[in-house]
Protein backbone atom coordinates (compact mmCIF):
# COMPACT_ATOMS: atom_id res chain seq x y z
CA UNK A 1 0.00 0.00 0.00
CA UNK A 2 1.53 3.40 -0.92
CA UNK A 3 2.24 5.91 1.83
CA UNK A 4 -0.59 8.25 2.78
CA UNK A 5 -0.06 12.00 2.91
CA UNK A 6 1.33 13.16 6.23
CA UNK A 7 -1.84 15.15 6.96
CA UNK A 8 -3.80 11.89 6.88
CA UNK A 9 -1.17 10.12 8.97
CA UNK A 10 -1.46 12.84 11.62
CA UNK A 11 -5.27 12.83 11.46
CA UNK A 12 -5.32 9.07 11.97
CA UNK A 13 -2.95 9.36 14.90
CA UNK A 14 -5.13 12.04 16.48
CA UNK A 15 -8.27 9.96 15.91
CA UNK A 16 -6.66 6.93 17.53
CA UNK A 17 -6.26 8.92 20.76
CA UNK A 18 -9.73 10.48 20.91
CA UNK A 19 -12.80 8.91 22.41
CA UNK A 20 -14.98 10.83 19.94
CA UNK A 21 -15.95 8.40 17.15
CA UNK A 22 -14.10 9.40 13.97
CA UNK A 23 -14.00 8.11 10.38
CA UNK A 24 -11.27 9.04 7.95
CA UNK A 25 -11.80 8.80 4.19
CA UNK A 26 -9.24 9.24 1.41
CA UNK A 27 -9.84 11.42 -1.67
CA UNK A 28 -10.82 8.31 -3.64
CA UNK A 29 -13.65 7.71 -1.11
CA UNK A 30 -11.74 4.78 0.36
CA UNK A 31 -12.35 4.25 4.05
CA UNK A 32 -8.89 4.64 5.55
CA UNK A 33 -9.57 4.36 9.23
CA UNK A 34 -12.07 4.53 12.03
CA UNK A 35 -11.13 4.64 15.67
CA UNK A 36 -12.07 2.43 18.59
CA UNK A 37 -14.88 4.76 19.62
CA UNK A 38 -16.41 4.39 16.15
CA UNK A 39 -15.98 0.62 16.35
CA UNK A 40 -18.12 0.67 19.48
CA UNK A 41 -20.75 2.77 17.75
CA UNK A 42 -20.94 0.53 14.70
CA UNK A 43 -20.32 -2.77 16.40
CA UNK A 44 -17.75 -3.45 13.70
CA UNK A 45 -13.97 -3.68 14.14
CA UNK A 46 -12.02 -1.58 11.64
CA UNK A 47 -10.06 -4.61 10.46
CA UNK A 48 -13.33 -6.19 9.24
CA UNK A 49 -14.59 -3.09 7.43
CA UNK A 50 -12.39 -3.42 4.32
CA UNK A 51 -12.25 -0.53 1.85
CA UNK A 52 -15.89 0.36 2.18
CA UNK A 53 -17.13 3.42 0.24
CA UNK A 54 -19.53 5.66 2.20
CA UNK A 55 -22.67 4.65 0.29
CA UNK A 56 -21.99 0.95 0.99
CA UNK A 57 -21.44 1.76 4.63
CA UNK A 58 -24.79 3.57 4.65
CA UNK A 59 -26.52 0.46 3.29
CA UNK A 60 -24.77 -1.81 5.80
CA UNK A 61 -25.90 0.36 8.69
CA UNK A 62 -29.35 1.06 7.20
CA UNK A 63 -28.85 4.78 7.57
CA UNK A 64 -32.06 6.82 7.92
CA UNK A 65 -32.97 10.38 8.65
CA UNK A 66 -33.72 11.29 12.25
CA UNK A 67 -37.43 11.04 11.32
CA UNK A 68 -36.89 7.46 10.19
CA UNK A 69 -37.02 7.97 6.40
CA UNK A 70 -34.54 6.36 4.03
CA UNK A 71 -31.57 8.61 3.42
CA UNK A 72 -30.15 8.78 -0.11
CA UNK A 73 -26.37 8.39 -0.21
CA UNK A 74 -25.94 11.83 -1.75
CA UNK A 75 -27.40 13.41 1.40
CA UNK A 76 -24.98 11.73 3.76
CA UNK A 77 -22.73 14.37 5.36
CA UNK A 78 -19.60 12.37 4.53
CA UNK A 79 -20.61 12.13 0.87
CA UNK A 80 -21.18 15.89 0.74
CA UNK A 81 -17.78 16.51 2.33
CA UNK A 82 -16.06 14.16 -0.11
CA UNK A 83 -17.85 14.97 -3.36
CA UNK A 84 -18.83 18.60 -2.92
CA UNK A 85 -15.91 19.54 -0.67
CA UNK A 86 -18.28 21.27 1.68
CA UNK A 87 -18.70 20.82 5.42
CA UNK A 88 -21.92 19.05 6.32
CA UNK A 89 -23.80 18.19 9.46
CA UNK A 90 -26.87 16.05 10.02
CA UNK A 91 -28.59 13.83 12.53
CA UNK A 92 -28.97 10.29 11.24
CA UNK A 93 -30.15 6.94 12.54
CA UNK A 94 -28.05 3.86 12.00
CA UNK A 95 -28.43 0.25 12.98
CA UNK A 96 -25.15 -1.21 14.21
CA UNK A 97 -24.02 -4.77 13.67
CA UNK A 98 -25.23 -5.41 17.22
CA UNK A 99 -28.79 -4.68 16.04
CA UNK A 100 -29.15 -1.51 18.10
CA UNK A 101 -30.58 1.59 16.42
CA UNK A 102 -28.67 4.72 17.38
CA UNK A 103 -29.34 8.35 16.62
CA UNK A 104 -26.08 10.14 15.95
CA UNK A 105 -25.02 13.61 14.99
CA UNK A 106 -22.51 13.50 12.13
CA UNK A 107 -20.23 16.42 11.36
CA UNK A 108 -18.06 15.99 8.30
CA UNK A 109 -15.30 18.20 6.96
CA UNK A 110 -13.30 18.01 3.75
CA UNK A 111 -9.54 17.88 4.37
CA UNK A 112 -7.74 20.33 2.10
CA UNK A 113 -3.96 20.38 1.82
CA UNK A 114 -1.61 23.05 0.59
CA UNK A 115 -1.79 23.77 -3.10
CA UNK A 116 -5.50 22.96 -3.17
CA UNK A 117 -4.93 19.23 -2.75
CA UNK A 118 -8.02 17.32 -1.72
CA UNK A 119 -6.94 14.81 0.89
CA UNK A 120 -10.31 13.28 1.69
CA UNK A 121 -12.67 13.96 4.55
CA UNK A 122 -13.11 13.34 8.23
CA UNK A 123 -16.36 12.51 9.99
CA UNK A 124 -16.99 13.12 13.69
CA UNK A 125 -19.94 11.34 15.31
CA UNK A 126 -21.83 12.01 18.49
CA UNK A 127 -24.32 9.51 19.85
CA UNK A 128 -27.62 11.06 20.95
CA UNK A 129 -29.52 7.97 21.98
CA UNK A 130 -30.26 4.28 21.46
CA UNK A 131 -33.40 2.28 20.73
CA UNK A 132 -33.82 -1.46 20.46
Amino acid at each position, binding site marked *: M*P*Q*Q*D*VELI*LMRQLAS*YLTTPIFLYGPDERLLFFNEAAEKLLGLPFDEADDMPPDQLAILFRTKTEAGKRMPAKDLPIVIALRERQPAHNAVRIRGIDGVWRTIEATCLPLM*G*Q*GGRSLGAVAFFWEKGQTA
Partner: protein
Amino acid sequence: MKLTFWGTRGSLPSPGPENARYGGNTACVEVRGADGAMLVLDAGTGIRRLSASLPDGLTRVDLLLTHLHMDHIQGLGFFAPLYQPGLEVHIWGPPSATHDLGTRLTRYYLSRPLFPVRLRDLPCQLTLHDVPSDEFEIAGFRITAALVCHPGPTVGYRISENGATVTYLPDQELALGAREFCPDAEWTSGYALAEGADLLIHDAQYTDEEYPERIGWGHSTFNHTLAFAAATDVKRLVTFHHDPAHSDQMLDRFVEQARRSSALPFLLVGGEEGATFQIHG
Protein backbone atom coordinates in the same frame (compact mmCIF):
# COMPACT_ATOMS: atom_id res chain seq x y z
CA MET B 1 26.33 12.09 -7.16
CA LYS B 2 28.78 13.31 -4.58
CA LEU B 3 27.63 14.45 -1.15
CA THR B 4 29.56 16.58 1.32
CA PHE B 5 28.31 17.10 4.86
CA TRP B 6 28.98 20.68 6.00
CA GLY B 7 26.80 20.55 9.10
CA THR B 8 25.18 17.59 10.85
CA ARG B 9 24.19 19.03 14.24
CA GLY B 10 20.59 19.63 15.20
CA SER B 11 18.80 22.40 17.03
CA LEU B 12 21.77 24.61 17.98
CA PRO B 13 25.33 25.17 16.77
CA SER B 14 27.44 23.26 19.26
CA PRO B 15 31.16 23.87 18.78
CA GLY B 16 33.56 22.44 21.33
CA PRO B 17 36.34 19.92 21.68
CA GLU B 18 33.87 17.22 22.68
CA ASN B 19 32.10 17.62 19.31
CA ALA B 20 35.16 18.08 17.11
CA ARG B 21 34.60 15.09 14.83
CA TYR B 22 30.83 14.99 14.31
CA GLY B 23 30.95 18.76 14.27
CA GLY B 24 29.06 21.65 15.76
CA ASN B 25 27.60 23.23 12.63
CA THR B 26 23.91 22.81 11.89
CA ALA B 27 22.29 21.21 8.86
CA CYS B 28 23.89 21.72 5.48
CA VAL B 29 24.66 19.12 2.80
CA GLU B 30 26.14 19.74 -0.63
CA VAL B 31 25.01 17.57 -3.53
CA ARG B 32 27.08 17.57 -6.71
CA GLY B 33 25.80 16.04 -9.91
CA ALA B 34 27.83 14.22 -12.51
CA ASP B 35 28.15 17.35 -14.63
CA GLY B 36 29.01 19.60 -11.68
CA ALA B 37 25.49 20.90 -11.05
CA MET B 38 25.06 21.83 -7.43
CA LEU B 39 22.29 21.54 -4.86
CA VAL B 40 22.59 22.71 -1.29
CA LEU B 41 20.32 21.08 1.28
CA ASP B 42 19.45 23.48 4.08
CA ALA B 43 21.21 26.62 5.21
CA GLY B 44 22.35 25.82 8.72
CA THR B 45 25.62 27.25 9.98
CA GLY B 46 27.56 24.69 7.95
CA ILE B 47 26.76 26.70 4.81
CA ARG B 48 29.43 29.28 5.68
CA ARG B 49 32.25 26.79 5.15
CA LEU B 50 30.56 25.46 2.03
CA SER B 51 30.60 29.00 0.64
CA ALA B 52 34.35 29.13 1.04
CA SER B 53 34.76 25.98 -1.05
CA LEU B 54 32.73 27.06 -4.07
CA PRO B 55 34.57 26.92 -7.39
CA ASP B 56 35.11 29.95 -9.60
CA GLY B 57 32.82 30.18 -12.57
CA LEU B 58 29.73 28.91 -10.81
CA THR B 59 26.68 30.28 -12.59
CA ARG B 60 23.78 28.75 -10.68
CA VAL B 61 23.12 27.36 -7.21
CA ASP B 62 19.91 25.81 -5.94
CA LEU B 63 19.31 25.83 -2.21
CA LEU B 64 16.61 23.43 -0.98
CA LEU B 65 15.27 24.26 2.46
CA THR B 66 13.34 21.64 4.40
CA HIS B 67 11.78 24.19 6.75
CA LEU B 68 12.45 27.49 8.43
CA HIS B 69 13.53 26.52 11.92
CA MET B 70 16.61 28.51 12.87
CA ASP B 71 19.05 25.59 12.75
CA HIS B 72 18.18 25.20 9.06
CA ILE B 73 18.37 28.86 7.99
CA GLN B 74 20.77 30.53 10.39
CA GLY B 75 23.63 30.36 7.88
CA LEU B 76 21.61 31.80 5.01
CA GLY B 77 22.90 35.35 5.49
CA PHE B 78 26.45 33.97 5.21
CA PHE B 79 25.88 32.10 1.96
CA ALA B 80 28.37 33.86 -0.30
CA PRO B 81 26.50 33.35 -3.61
CA LEU B 82 23.75 35.67 -2.36
CA TYR B 83 26.22 38.56 -2.57
CA GLN B 84 27.58 37.82 -6.05
CA PRO B 85 25.95 40.08 -8.63
CA GLY B 86 24.71 38.09 -11.58
CA LEU B 87 24.96 34.69 -9.95
CA GLU B 88 21.68 32.79 -10.29
CA VAL B 89 20.49 31.63 -6.87
CA HIS B 90 17.27 29.66 -6.50
CA ILE B 91 15.87 29.01 -3.04
CA TRP B 92 13.22 26.33 -2.71
CA GLY B 93 11.21 25.66 0.41
CA PRO B 94 7.77 25.01 1.81
CA PRO B 95 5.14 27.72 1.96
CA SER B 96 2.78 27.83 4.90
CA ALA B 97 -0.98 27.58 4.52
CA THR B 98 -1.19 31.35 4.10
CA HIS B 99 2.27 32.70 3.19
CA ASP B 100 4.67 31.95 0.37
CA LEU B 101 8.33 31.17 0.99
CA GLY B 102 9.50 34.72 0.30
CA THR B 103 7.12 36.24 2.82
CA ARG B 104 8.12 33.67 5.41
CA LEU B 105 11.86 34.14 4.89
CA THR B 106 11.51 37.91 5.10
CA ARG B 107 9.31 37.74 8.15
CA TYR B 108 11.31 35.19 10.07
CA TYR B 109 14.94 35.86 9.26
CA LEU B 110 16.22 38.07 6.45
CA SER B 111 14.91 41.31 7.87
CA ARG B 112 15.67 43.68 10.71
CA PRO B 113 16.18 43.26 13.62
CA LEU B 114 17.31 39.68 13.05
CA PHE B 115 19.65 40.40 10.13
CA PRO B 116 21.01 43.66 8.69
CA VAL B 117 20.65 42.76 5.00
CA ARG B 118 17.16 42.49 3.63
CA LEU B 119 16.16 39.81 1.16
CA ARG B 120 15.23 42.41 -1.45
CA ASP B 121 18.65 44.08 -1.21
CA LEU B 122 20.66 40.98 -2.16
CA PRO B 123 22.63 41.58 -5.38
CA CYS B 124 22.45 38.06 -6.83
CA GLN B 125 19.73 37.02 -9.26
CA LEU B 126 17.50 35.53 -6.61
CA THR B 127 14.42 33.44 -7.33
CA LEU B 128 12.27 32.00 -4.57
CA HIS B 129 10.18 28.92 -5.21
CA ASP B 130 7.42 27.39 -3.15
CA VAL B 131 8.47 23.78 -3.39
CA PRO B 132 6.10 21.84 -5.70
CA SER B 133 4.17 18.88 -4.38
CA ASP B 134 4.87 16.92 -7.57
CA GLU B 135 8.20 15.70 -8.87
CA PHE B 136 10.32 18.47 -10.37
CA GLU B 137 13.71 18.78 -12.01
CA ILE B 138 16.75 20.95 -11.39
CA ALA B 139 19.79 20.68 -13.65
CA GLY B 140 19.43 16.95 -14.25
CA PHE B 141 18.35 16.06 -10.71
CA ARG B 142 14.86 14.59 -10.34
CA ILE B 143 13.46 15.77 -7.04
CA THR B 144 10.40 14.82 -5.03
CA ALA B 145 9.42 16.83 -1.98
CA ALA B 146 6.75 15.83 0.51
CA LEU B 147 5.52 17.13 3.82
CA VAL B 148 6.74 15.14 6.81
CA CYS B 149 5.91 14.93 10.48
CA HIS B 150 7.60 17.92 12.14
CA PRO B 151 6.15 21.08 13.72
CA GLY B 152 5.38 23.73 11.08
CA PRO B 153 5.51 23.24 7.31
CA THR B 154 8.43 20.85 6.73
CA VAL B 155 9.38 18.76 3.73
CA GLY B 156 11.83 15.99 3.02
CA TYR B 157 13.54 15.49 -0.34
CA ARG B 158 14.22 12.49 -2.56
CA ILE B 159 16.88 13.31 -5.15
CA SER B 160 17.80 11.08 -8.06
CA GLU B 161 20.34 11.33 -10.81
CA ASN B 162 21.61 8.67 -13.21
CA GLY B 163 19.90 5.89 -11.26
CA ALA B 164 21.30 6.94 -7.87
CA THR B 165 18.94 8.16 -5.13
CA VAL B 166 19.53 10.12 -1.95
CA THR B 167 16.79 10.88 0.57
CA TYR B 168 17.16 13.78 2.97
CA LEU B 169 14.91 13.71 6.06
CA PRO B 170 16.82 15.78 8.60
CA ASP B 171 13.85 16.53 10.83
CA GLN B 172 10.96 14.18 11.30
CA GLU B 173 9.31 12.52 14.25
CA LEU B 174 8.64 8.99 13.08
CA ALA B 175 6.83 7.85 16.19
CA LEU B 176 4.58 10.82 16.95
CA GLY B 177 1.32 9.46 18.28
CA ALA B 178 2.34 5.85 17.90
CA ARG B 179 1.90 3.72 21.00
CA GLU B 180 4.65 1.47 19.73
CA PHE B 181 6.53 2.53 16.62
CA CYS B 182 6.53 -0.12 13.94
CA PRO B 183 7.17 1.24 10.45
CA ASP B 184 4.25 0.60 8.16
CA ALA B 185 4.47 1.56 4.52
CA GLU B 186 1.06 3.21 4.42
CA TRP B 187 1.13 5.06 7.73
CA THR B 188 4.72 6.18 8.28
CA SER B 189 5.81 9.72 7.48
CA GLY B 190 8.57 9.88 4.88
CA TYR B 191 8.24 6.26 3.80
CA ALA B 192 7.67 6.96 0.13
CA LEU B 193 10.58 9.38 0.01
CA ALA B 194 12.99 6.91 1.56
CA GLU B 195 11.93 3.61 0.03
CA GLY B 196 14.83 1.88 -1.69
CA ALA B 197 17.17 4.88 -1.51
CA ASP B 198 20.88 4.30 -2.01
CA LEU B 199 21.57 6.65 0.87
CA LEU B 200 19.22 7.95 3.55
CA ILE B 201 20.12 10.95 5.69
CA HIS B 202 17.81 10.85 8.69
CA ASP B 203 17.12 12.57 11.98
CA ALA B 204 18.44 10.48 14.90
CA GLN B 205 18.45 13.10 17.61
CA TYR B 206 17.35 11.28 20.73
CA THR B 207 18.04 8.18 22.74
CA ASP B 208 15.16 5.96 23.82
CA GLU B 209 15.57 7.40 27.32
CA GLU B 210 15.40 11.03 26.16
CA TYR B 211 12.44 10.71 23.83
CA PRO B 212 9.55 10.44 26.33
CA GLU B 213 10.39 13.93 27.61
CA ARG B 214 10.53 15.36 24.10
CA ILE B 215 7.51 13.90 22.34
CA GLY B 216 6.07 16.37 19.88
CA TRP B 217 9.32 18.27 19.37
CA GLY B 218 9.62 16.81 15.90
CA HIS B 219 12.55 14.40 16.12
CA SER B 220 13.26 10.69 16.09
CA THR B 221 15.24 8.36 18.26
CA PHE B 222 18.29 6.54 17.00
CA ASN B 223 16.43 3.22 17.26
CA HIS B 224 13.30 4.47 15.46
CA THR B 225 15.54 5.65 12.65
CA LEU B 226 17.24 2.26 12.43
CA ALA B 227 13.82 0.56 12.21
CA PHE B 228 12.71 3.03 9.54
CA ALA B 229 15.86 2.46 7.46
CA ALA B 230 15.38 -1.30 7.64
CA ALA B 231 11.70 -1.07 6.68
CA THR B 232 12.34 1.24 3.75
CA ASP B 233 15.10 -1.04 2.46
CA VAL B 234 17.75 1.64 2.04
CA LYS B 235 21.34 0.68 1.27
CA ARG B 236 23.05 3.17 3.58
CA LEU B 237 21.85 5.20 6.55
CA VAL B 238 23.66 8.32 7.68
CA THR B 239 22.44 9.54 11.06
CA PHE B 240 21.90 13.27 11.24
CA HIS B 241 20.63 16.17 13.36
CA HIS B 242 22.66 15.10 16.37
CA ASP B 243 21.51 16.47 19.69
CA PRO B 244 23.71 19.35 20.92
CA ALA B 245 24.34 17.39 24.14
CA HIS B 246 25.60 14.28 22.34
CA SER B 247 29.38 14.26 22.20
CA ASP B 248 31.59 12.41 19.73
CA GLN B 249 32.08 9.72 22.33
CA MET B 250 28.35 9.23 22.80
CA LEU B 251 27.58 9.24 19.07
CA ASP B 252 30.32 6.66 18.45
CA ARG B 253 28.79 4.52 21.15
CA PHE B 254 25.28 4.72 19.59
CA VAL B 255 26.65 3.57 16.24
CA GLU B 256 28.71 0.76 17.74
CA GLN B 257 25.84 -0.48 19.87
CA ALA B 258 23.53 -0.56 16.86
CA ARG B 259 26.08 -2.46 14.78
CA ARG B 260 26.61 -5.00 17.56
CA SER B 261 22.99 -5.46 18.60
CA SER B 262 21.66 -6.83 15.33
CA ALA B 263 22.60 -7.67 11.79
CA LEU B 264 21.63 -4.42 10.12
CA PRO B 265 20.35 -4.82 6.55
CA PHE B 266 22.05 -1.56 5.55
CA LEU B 267 25.37 0.16 6.10
CA LEU B 268 25.16 2.46 9.12
CA VAL B 269 27.29 5.59 9.24
CA GLY B 270 27.26 8.29 11.90
CA GLY B 271 26.95 11.62 10.08
CA GLU B 272 30.20 13.52 10.57
CA GLU B 273 30.87 17.07 9.45
CA GLY B 274 33.24 16.99 6.47
CA ALA B 275 32.28 13.46 5.41
CA THR B 276 31.83 12.82 1.70
CA PHE B 277 29.94 10.05 -0.10
CA GLN B 278 29.89 8.97 -3.71
CA ILE B 279 26.50 7.58 -4.65
CA HIS B 280 26.10 5.26 -7.62
CA GLY B 281 22.87 3.72 -8.84
